[in-house]
């Protein structure tokens, strides 16, 4: 029993990190019809700048703030310089965002060196609680709570506020939103920056969880993010939470019971969904 609980907590924590990455991806795709293959670059930049600040100031919280700022700045630059010129052209988008991923990843090595950097959990989040036989690792619970809070905040914004309504309306019908007098480009920029910030938070939270950060982790996590977006349905916010938890749990259990399959299971999951239900499990209703 205690084993299952700790596997579940592991899976949930990983799932939440993937969710932070996938949430931005899915919103950007749903609204802008852009699949951002560079999203993992934002994740890894968030991790590095966050950890850098965390080490410098010895405050984990300031580190998170730094990660968010980095995400927003990079998001702003990317949307303006990289994405805007290729709206509407899928092939060019795929090519150009992949190129950006490459550059972002290599720039990490230039700025912070090519070696992995160890990261420790802040004191107040280190250690664990013991409930009878069950050991609850604090930091993992922290990630799960942060993930749920982020989901709650965004769910509120998307369903209860005007800007959220506009974003959702934009996902359904961009032309009409414009014809109602809303500058969709501003909304695009806003969503892109928010998505980038979410990815950066994910990267920063990931750092103490995995114990070290390295440049390639962006691409690795981005692939999980894509899988989640596909399974959850492109453009569906709740769908990506569901799929992220699914992928996290599947990964956690597989790693314990069938380790040789753990890498493949998510790929297979995505392939099955793409082949049989390419619109994802949570479909966006149009019109």
């Amino acid at each position, binding site marked *: 029993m205690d084993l299952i609980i700790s596997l579940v907590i592991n899976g949930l924590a990983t799932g939440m990190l993937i969710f932070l990455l996938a949430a931005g991806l899915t919103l950007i795709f749903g609204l802008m019809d852009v699949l951002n293959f560079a999203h993992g670059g934002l994740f890894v930049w968030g991790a590095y700048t966050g950890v850098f600040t965390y080490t410098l100031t010895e405050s984990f919280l300031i580190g998170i703030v730094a990660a968010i700022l980095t995400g927003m700045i990079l998001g702003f630059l990317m949307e303006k310089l*990289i994405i805007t010129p290729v709206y509407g052209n899928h092939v060019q988008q795929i090519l150009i965002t992949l*190129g950006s991923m*490459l550059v972002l990843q*290599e*720039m990490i090595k230039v700025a912070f060196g090519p070696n992995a950097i160890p990261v420790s959990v802040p004191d107040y989040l280190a250690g664990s609680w013991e409930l009878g036989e069950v050991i609850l690792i604090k930091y993992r619970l922290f990630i799960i709570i942060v993930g749920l809070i982020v989901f709650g905040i965004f769910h509120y914004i998307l369903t209860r506020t005007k800007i959220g309504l506009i974003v959702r309306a934009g996902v359904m019908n961009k032309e009409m939103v414009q014809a109602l007098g809303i500058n969709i480009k501003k909304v695009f920029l806003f969503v892109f920056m928010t998505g980038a910030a979410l990815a950066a938070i994910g990267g920063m939270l990931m750092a103490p969880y995995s114990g070290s950060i390295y440049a390639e982790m962006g691409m690795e996590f981005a692939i999980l993010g*894509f899988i989640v977006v596909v399974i959850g349905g492109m453009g569906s916010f709740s769908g990506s939470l569901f799929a992220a938890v699914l992928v996290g749990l599947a990964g956690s259990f597989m790693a314990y019971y069938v380790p*040789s399959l753990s890498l*493949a299971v998510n*790929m297979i999951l995505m392939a099955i969904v*793409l082949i049989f239900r390419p619109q994802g499990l949570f479909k966006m209703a149009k019109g």
Partner: protein
Amino acid sequence: MGMKTTNLVSKYHIFFFVILIFLIAFPFVADSRTLTILFTQIFIFAILAMSYDLLLGYTGIVSFGHAMFFGIGAYATAILLNTFEPTIGVFIGSMIVGILLSAIVSFFVGLLTLRLKSHFFAMLTLAISGLLLVVAEKWRTVTKGNDGFTFRAPDIFKDRIVFYFCVLACLVIVFLLLRRFVASPLGKVLIAVRENEQRTRSLGFKTLHYKVISSVVAGVVASLAGSLYAVSLRFVNTSVMTMDITLDALLMTIIGGVGTLVGPIVGSVVIEFAQHYLSGLAREFPIFERWIIFFGIIYILAVVFFPKGIVGSIQMQISKWKSKKEVRKTFALPEDKERAS
């Protein structure tokens, strides 16, 4: 875009001929083992990049899994040469095995995935090649995983110059065959699919069939490149299946010029040379260890500003210069407008 006047075609022919003579003479004139090996490498990647161009440039599909066919070819050759006697016969047999396997895999992958929109296709190819990479890593009894294994190549290839000519011959043959392929009626349909799939379909073409054919041909050619690559290293490990190989092919095709076939060759020359010299410079200036950044940036700029790459841009200049000599029309040709957009 083929040139129209016979005058220019023959100029092109002379140009290629001169280069070919140069490449044939090269190993004898320049007594440099390093350069011979570098050129061999360039030819191999040029073959791979041309196969990628068939997908990207002629059919308009972005695959992130092209490395898997390269890997299939490399492993087929490495495993067979390792298991049986390293003779020319086994080598040729292994190429054929690789080609057949690639044809089968690309056929089924294509059939399953090419119905999807470009985003999904790119991701699914990424996933499938990732899956194959995992298989290669886990199936250690056959592949030795990430450590890889060395094997003996046919004796005749021990002479680097012989191998050089072998690969050069492959490159020329593949180039000529692919050129015929894209100029054939079938190739024309592929270009139509790239330009407007919907309209091609409404003209009564089963576009899926054509896309699958394109991906099978591309897979087969990539497998051939993989076979040659394995022999050139006499070593194989899972790196032949990684995203890096696909990225190399992509960079070469984009920088050289998509949809030209010559472009990928030029691209592989540029990238391989630059990689060679920039990593040499890295000893003095560590920034050059990250040479991929420069390519990444050039690549991004190319996608936005020179989507036709080096060769495509030169061709455009030539045809502009040519059309100046022709009678000017009041309105731009529709063809030109398409290029501009």
